[in-house]
Every structure is written in structure tokens, then in C-alpha cells.
């Protein structure tokens, strides 16, 4: 049956569809812009469908293993290979499936938004080509079970992101942001490649499961671990390696900024995958856990305090993105710090990890929504400077509603989704270390304060004469924002369902290293 074939091949199709669509985009674009838009949206819908199909498969029947070029997708260990996987293997467990869902929902709403929002620019064929490459990069990064393949998708992602950050040249300033982002991410990716080389030299393998099953935590492994933590931490924007984040986020087109948030979280996924699946209990859990916690707390505090005095609305939101990444690092770091101690893990470790992972998906939704509203405002009034805005609530009512939903969610106000994940983090971290929990709550209050400022200066106040005839954002942009807003509200209203069915399997998949190894290696 054709549906069986599609489900069986969905991990490959997930990467293949965006790639084919991307490379065909220059040809399709020559026909007419309308056909190109339909093509891009169609490709994105198909990709999202694949991601959801695959996620359904993973959550119902466990980890999916897909071997490229083998005689059957499940044959990760060929009979004549001596018991090791020799081919590139995609290993999609619950954590990967969760990240794919994030990529699918965000990607789809961004592409709908882009069709209206970036209509006025030239060179849109290249824009959509690079955008679809970004999607392929994210999907590949979170699906792959092979370290070198991870590096390749990481580079695909950062090259296409850099191209898109510089897309709107803006008298060279966007190019400056792109240079800063790209130099740092290139160095980071190469450092990751050094770590991969160390693993290859030591364990003769590139497959994550094989390396995990042979892990010794020698001095070389410690060096590789540090290189990976620092590089991936830099790529997800943890303070004090966050300097590229506000530059790149503020200068990229808004739709791309929302996608860059997902890209950062794919790096965060890589960090968690390395720490939990590759090393798990072999590493010194307390030390590495505390390193991640310290990075998280620094990100939370520095991010939010730098955000408050900002005048550029997207730069302000970028600092908030750093601050929210801190919550994820804090939650998962606490889970890591008690790894190996089953009673503490049951008492609060799992809840902390679930809070951190739940925050990943929540953050992608509401931060994407906020960047899209900022983009809609920029689209209509042509400035990002908060000092020159005011009274737009009279003219852009839907945008204002979406902004309020996003702002309340990021500030952790019930009943939106940010509250649910932050509550899980507060309560579980309080049992680990009360001071950390109090810092997290203070940061949340400052976030609310900062968004009150943004809300006031953009939407409140009398109608300004220069914006008297500003119109509401066009319908496709509103639809894109609406999808994300709906997800924010739904996740906020039914957090129990989401946590039980999506988040808990993901946290279990991270902690349970043996299941990952046996899914690839078979038996054992």
C-alpha cells in the first residue's frame, strides 16, 4: 500500500521533500510568483504532514530507525558488518519527534506569513530555497543518529541561516549581523567536528548509539564533551556566548527570526542529546549538570536585564529569547545534576526535565508569535524603534490580540502555555535548590515588566498623526500568527494532555540511554 510506504519512509521524506522543493524553487519561480508560493506552501504542508505522521508512529509504537541505502529501512546493522551500523541511520525517538513537531508547526505558520510579509522584496526564489534548506537542516539535525551527519545538517542550517540573515541588506547592517553569526557558528561547528574526530579515533564509530555503548569517559572524552557543550551552548545563545544572538535576531527578516529560534532550539536538542544519550551516567553528572545550570541562570538574568532598556523591539525580544533559553537549560540541567540517583530523579528530576522540554516547545510557539507580530508592525509602519511607535492598537486590533497572547505566555501568566512549563520548573527546582527557583521567578516578573513596556509603547496611547491611516496586517500574515496563537492557547488550556502524551515520553527517551542503543543495535 502507498500509505504504508509513506509511513515506512517518512524519516527520509521529511528531509527529502524540503530539499527537492528547495532545489526546484528557482525553476518554479520563473513560471510565476503565484505558482512559486503554492509550491512552497505545498512542500511545507507535506513536510509538516510527514513530521506529524512520523511523530504519531513514534509516540504509538516507539523509536523509529531508518537506515539510508540499506536493503530495508530497519536494517541498521547489516549481517556482514560485524555487529556495527555502517550506514547513516536516522534514529527518531520521542525527543526527536517532539522537535520535529516544533519545526513543522512553526515552519508552516512562518511560510504562510512570509508569502504576504516578504512579497515586496526581490530574489524571493533564493529566499524560499534557503528557507526550505533551513527546514531540511532542522529536521535532519533532530532526526539523525549519526554524529557526522549531525555536523553536516548543522552546517546546512547555519549556511542557509547566514544567507537569510543578510537577505535584507539594509545598508550593510544585516550583513554585519550575518558575518558575526556565521563566523561564530562556523568556528563552533568546526569545534564540534574536532569532538567527532576524537570519538572516531577512540571508538571507530560515528553512530551515536555505538559510541554511547562504548563510552569510557577518558580524558579525551572529557575534552570532546567540553568542546560539544561549549559549541552547542554558544549556538543556542547561552550567556556569556550570546553576543551574536541579538545582532542576528534583530537584523534578520521577522519570519526568519522566528525560524532562527527553532534553529537555536535544534542546537539545544543537540546539547541534550550529547549529554544524555551519548554520555548519560558515565559523565560526572553533578559537575556537568551544574555547568548547564550556571549557564542557564546567567542566561536568564543577563538576558532579561539587558532586554529592559532596549529600544529596538526585535533586539528586545532577542534578549528575551536568551532569557527563556535559560529556563530550558535550568530545567534540564537540574534533571542532569541528579541523573543516576533514581530517588531524586523520581522526586523532582523528571519534572524539572519535563518542564525544560515543555518550555522548548512553548518557547518556539510564543516567541515565534511575538517575532511575527513585530514583523507585522514593521511591515506596516517601517520602523522597529519603540520611541517612534504608539497608538497602533487603534488600527491593528488582531495583531494586538496576538501580541497580548504571546506576551502573557512569555511572562508566565495563566492560562497560557508559558505558565504551565514555568510552574513545573519552579516547583521542581525549588526542591533542588530554592535560590535557583526564586531567581527564575524574579526573571519571570522582569519579563512581564518588560513586555508591559513594549505593549504600552507600541499599542497604547493616543493615535499618532503619522500612523493615522495604518492598516491591519494582510490576511496570510494573520493566519500564520493565528496558528501559533491557537497552539499557545491550546497548550495552555490542556497542559496535562500535552505533558502526558508528548513531553513525558521525550524526557524518558533522553534519560533512558539503553533504549536508544538497543533500538539501533538491536537485541541487547
Amino acid at each position: 500500500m502507498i500509505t504504508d510506504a509513506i509511513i515506512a519512509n517518512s524519516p527520509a521524506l521529511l528531509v527529502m521533500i524540503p530539499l527537492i522543493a528547495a532545489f526546484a524553487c528557482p525553476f518554479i519561480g520563473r513560471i510565476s510568483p503565484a505558482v512559486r508560493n503554492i509550491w512552497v506552501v505545498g512542500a511545507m504542508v507535506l513536510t509538516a504532514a510527514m513530521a506529524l505522521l512520523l511523530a504519531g508512529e513514534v509516540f504509538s509504537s516507539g523509536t523509529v530507525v531508518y537506515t539510508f541505502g540499506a536493503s530495508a529501512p530497519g536494517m541498521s546493522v547489516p549481517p556482514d558488518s560485524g555487529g556495527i551500523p555502517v550506514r547513516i541511520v536516522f534514529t527518531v525517538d520521542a525527543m526527536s519527534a517532539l522537535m520535529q513537531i516544533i519545526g513543522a508547526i512553526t515552519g508552516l505558520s512562518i511560510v504562510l506569513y512570509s508569502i504576504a510579509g516578504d512579497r515586496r522584496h526581490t530574489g524571493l526564489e533564493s529566499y524560499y530555497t534557503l528557507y526550505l534548506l533551513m527546514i531540511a537542516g532542522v529536521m535532519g539535525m533532530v532526526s539523525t543518529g549519526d554524529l557526522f551527519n549531525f555536523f553536516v545538517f548543522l552546517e546546512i542550517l547555519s549556511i542557509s541561516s547566514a544567507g537569510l540573515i543578510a537577505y535584507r541588506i539594509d545598508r550593510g547592517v544585516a550583513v554585519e549581523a550575518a558575518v558575526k553569526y556565521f563566523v561564530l557558528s562556523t568556528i563552533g561547528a568546526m569545534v564540534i567536528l574536532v569532538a567527532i574526530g576524537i570519538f572516531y579515533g577512540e571508538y571507530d564509530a560515528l553512530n551515536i548509539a555505538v559510541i554511547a555503548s562504548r563510552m569510557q569517559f577518558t580524558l579525551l572524552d572529557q575534552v570532546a564533551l567540553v568542546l560539544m557543550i561549549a559549541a552547542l551552548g554558544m549556538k543556542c545563545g547561552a550567556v556569556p556566548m550570546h553576543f551574536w544572538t541579538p545582532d542576528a535576531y534583530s537584523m534578520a527578516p521577522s519570519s526568519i527570526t522566528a525560524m532562527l529560534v527553532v534553529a537555536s532550539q535544534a542546537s539545544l536538542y543537540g546539547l541534550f542529546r550529547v549529554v544524555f544519550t551519548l554520555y548519560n551516567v558515565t559523565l560526572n553528572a553533578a559537575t556537568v549538570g551544574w555547568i548547564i545550570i550556571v549557564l542557564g541562570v546567567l542566561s536568564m538574568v543577563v538576558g532579561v536585564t539587558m532586554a529592559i532598556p532596549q529600544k529596538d523591539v526585535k533586539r528586545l525580544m532577542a534578549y528575551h529569547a536568551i532569557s527563556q533559553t535559560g529556563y530550558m537549560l535550568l530545567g534540564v540541567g537540574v534533571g542532569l545534576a541528579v541523573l543516576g540517583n533514581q530517588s531524586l530523579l523520581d522526586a523532582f528530576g523528571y519534572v524539572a526535565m519535563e518542564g525544560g522540554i515543555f518550555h522548548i516547545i512553548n518557547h518556539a510557539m510564543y516567541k515565534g508569535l511575538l517575532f511575527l507580530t513585530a514583523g507585522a508592525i514593521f511591515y506596516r509602519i517601517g520602523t522597529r524603534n519603540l520611541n517612534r511607535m504608539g497608538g497602533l492598537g487603534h488600527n491593528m486590533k488582531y495583531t494586538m490580540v496576538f501580541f497580548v497572547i504571546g506576551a502573557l505566555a512569555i511572562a508566565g501568566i495563566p492560562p497560557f502555555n508559558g505558565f504551565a512549563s514555568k510552574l513545573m520548573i519552579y516547583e521542581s527546582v525549588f526542591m533542588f535548590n530554592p535560590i535557583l527557583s526564586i531567581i527564575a521567578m524574579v526573571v519571570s516578573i522582569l519579563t512581564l515588566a518588560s513586555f508591559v513596556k513594549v505593549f504600552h509603547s507600541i499599542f497604547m496611547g493616543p493615535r499618532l498623526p503619522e500612523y493615522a491611516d495604518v492598516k491591519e496586517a494582510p490576511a496570510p500574515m494573520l493566519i500564520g500568527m493565528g496558528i501559533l496563537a491557537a497552539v499557545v492557547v491550546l497548550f495552555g488550556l490542556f497542559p496535562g494532555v500535552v505533558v502526558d502524551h508528548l513531553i513525558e515520553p521525550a524526557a524518558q527517551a533522553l534519560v533512558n540511554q539503553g533504549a536508544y542503543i538497543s533500538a539501533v543495535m538491536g537485541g541487547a
Partner: protein
Amino acid sequence: MDLIASLYTGSGYWNPLVWLIAIVVVFVIVYLIWSRGESGYKKGTLQTTPFISGNPEPEKSGVHVPGGNLYWGYTEALKGYYSRLVPLHTGRLNDYLLWYLGVTAIIMVVVVVTA
């Protein structure tokens, strides 16, 4: 599927639907109190204009507070913190890279020493 599942956080639970019901109840009570108030004010008279100590009401666009003026007191109070933190964001590519290398070195020392 249990749609009204509560979220258990280890030391308690959270159920937004219960919270929503509570909010609705509170709003009903607020409305009941509000509806008992005096409704006999006269529109278009001094009763509906703001009272600014007898001064004339200023032009609407003149009272708009732009974003840059908000939280002036907050940044002023934390001047010692901000005057150290903000200059770290130099915008120089080399500094960005040095921070990254420095953090890598620190983590390296911590991990290798404690292993």
C-alpha cells in the same frame, strides 16, 4: 483521552480549567457588585471629564509617553549593574570569539579537574 487532565508538578497540581472557572466566578461577582452602583451620571457634562486640579485637558498626542522613557527609574537605580554589563556588549567580532574561547577554557578546567 482525558482532556481535563491536571498537571502534577511533584508538590501540587495545576488545572487551567479549574482556574478558568474560578476566574469566571470572580468576574460574575465583580459584575454583580458593579451593577449595584450608581448609574445616574450625566453624559457630556463635567462628570465624565478627567479632573486635573482645574487645569485644562492637554492635547491627546501631547501626553503620549514613548517607550524610551519607561523604566527610567529602574535603570537609574541599577546604574552600577548596567554600567558594567552594557559595555561588555562591544559589537566587536573578536570579542565575541574571545568570550566563546574563554568559556570553553573555563568549562574545560572545571570538567577535567572534577572528573
